[in-house]
């Protein structure tokens, strides 16, 4: 058959699908995350129903079998926002089933290189957002930050912010993927939740002043004789600027 598979879009769904495919060493052309009501439209697609138990067993199996390096790679790829990440990971797992931990060193292999590249993109973006998060203090003392990253990097940056701002209540909202991390300073723990934009938050009274100070500081720092807008744009792409205090009025 065509080799097109679909799952319900959840991690558990994907982890149910993989053992199924790996057992048959199926030749896969496409893996899509189709919502259930569309299934009948594509007769050629084989859909696997999510089974929490299978998924958990398979995840246990992966954590035991894969090297820490591979596991890190896959974790990053799972957080990517890429049309074919499920397929790339499947190809990687296929090769791993054959070669075992030797895949760690097979960096140039066509089933490994794309996974590594994608993982690197995700990791780079996550690192960049350690700097690009801008908190605004809102009424009641909560620090709120909106971001619009390409990939779902929240899980990769949560620990950093939880350690750094352990004494303040904060919330980082990924508006692009509709989720956010909420940190509870009392319990010292953070939680990933689905979130939507409903309204602009009311800012705390001193917030506007700090933003103004930061903007004027930022514009003073540039040395006119050295202006290099191209370099700046490479470092701060336009798509990130809507959420950065110093680039918005």
């Amino acid at each position: 058959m065509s080799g097109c598979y679909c799952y319900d879009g959840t991690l558990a769904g994907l982890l149910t699908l993989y053992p199924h495919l790996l057992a048959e060493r199926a030749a896969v052309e496409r893996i899509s995350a189709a919502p259930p009501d569309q299934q009948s439209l594509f007769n050629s697609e084989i859909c696997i129903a999510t089974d929490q138990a299978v998924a958990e067993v398979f995840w246990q199996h992966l954590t035991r079998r894969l090297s820490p390096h591979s596991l890190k790679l896959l974790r990053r790829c799972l957080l990517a926002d890429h049309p074919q990440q499920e397929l790339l990971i499947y190809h990687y797992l296929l090769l791993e089933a054959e070669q075992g931990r030797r895949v760690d060193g097979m960096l140039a292999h066509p089933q490994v290189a794309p996974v590594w590249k994608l993982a690197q993109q995700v990791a780079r973006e996550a690192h960049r957002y350690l700097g690009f998060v801008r908190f605004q203090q809102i009424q009641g003392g909560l620090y709120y930050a909106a971001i619009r990253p390409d990939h779902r990097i929240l899980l990769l940056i949560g620990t950093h912010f939880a350690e750094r701002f352990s004494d303040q209540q904060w919330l980082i909202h990924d508006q692009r993927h509709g989720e956010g991390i909420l940190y509870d300073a009392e319990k010292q723990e953070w939680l990933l939740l689905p979130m939507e934009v409903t309204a602009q938050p009311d800012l705390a009274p001193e917030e506007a002043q700090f933003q103004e100070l930061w903007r004027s500081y930022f514009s003073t720092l540039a040395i006119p004789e050295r202006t290099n807008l191209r370099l700046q744009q490479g470092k701060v792409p336009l798509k990130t600027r809507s959420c950065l205090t110093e680039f918005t009025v």
Partner: protein
Amino acid sequence: MATDLMDRLKILADGAKYDVSCSSSGSSRANSNGGIGSAASTGICHTWTSDGRCVSLLKILMTNACIYDCAYCINRRSNDVQRVALSPAEVAELTIGFYRRNYIEGLFLSTGVVRSADYTMELLIQAVRTLREQYRFNGYIHLKLVPGADPLLVQQAGLWADRVSVNLELPTRESLALLAPDKSRDAVVGPMRQVNQLITVNRAERKQSRKVPRFAPAGQSTQLIVGATGESDRQIVTLSEQLYQRLDLKRVYYSAFIPTVADTRLPARPEAPLRREHRLYQADWLLRYYGFSAHELLDEVSPNLDSELDPKTGWALRHLELFPLEINRASYEELLRVPGVGVRSAQRIIQARRQGHLGIDDLTSLGIVMKRARYFITARGRYAGEIKLESNTLRSRLVDGPEQKRPVQLSLDLEQPLRDETASLITGEL
């Protein structure tokens, strides 16, 4: 009050911005219980200004008043600018306000010298102490040492800060005497020596007991102004090498001289200062991470770096007898010397070739940039450069030429009726 603070911040940031040190790396400080902040060992850039330089630390002066009259400095005594100051409490408050909003990674505190070196140094220490003790701030702090300050104060500074620095500014004793008559070379190098000793002692002590507080965990750095005086690149790179080897500096920064004040002691604006600065940084990286030494990069015959070629390519063209290099056999150190191959590429090649010989295509999928490397390597015996390994021809291919223009379609003519032959070309009719 608010606008007043804004004005002072502007003036003090303006006075500090010519100090190019930006890094926030090299120190990993965990957040102690209930405090705020941490220092990430990789360093984090938070934004970039319109000149393409990163902003990582809140870089300000405590005051821009100064008793010295250094010709290159915007804050010199004889320069007619408004003099303002921030109190230690204000500095701390501002830092925390910015830090909590994740604008910055920490504080870079410098200053003009008021009254005396010791008095000024004490002011700086007071600000940093307020941050560490009162606000329990664990973020990154870079503190400037005031030349001529008491050794006891220097020692204190290192205990509060992650990194300390004194700017050498001018590479030779003579230029220092010319442009900064009030500063002596010993007043600058003295604290650097002292800090180096303290760091060495502290490291040894911390091996005995982890309870010993850390002294300047991110080490010390310095800055050289390039182009204000007539030194050659060779003098500068050799000096940097000595600073790295003898004083164990973490970084030497280079700042292309931009005249901020007119002075007869200063040269007219030098040509392409930014390009020269860029080449010096490349040479600096070769010293620190690629195992090169200064005399390999520059000698009496060519005392200045080639502005058209990066220093590593320049070196490779002078040593063509070593190339092409077979990447499946070359050692890590040899790989690092191939133009276009960096530390990461070299590591990846080493890792990947354990699982089988690498071909040219494999290199591309490893993410190795072949633009320059292809002329200097073979893979499985195949040479990918396609031209003879000969200095002049290679050089003409490798210079950073002006960017090539790609052909563009100027317009699509929709109005004009198609002539027969054009129409038949498109439709395929005869």
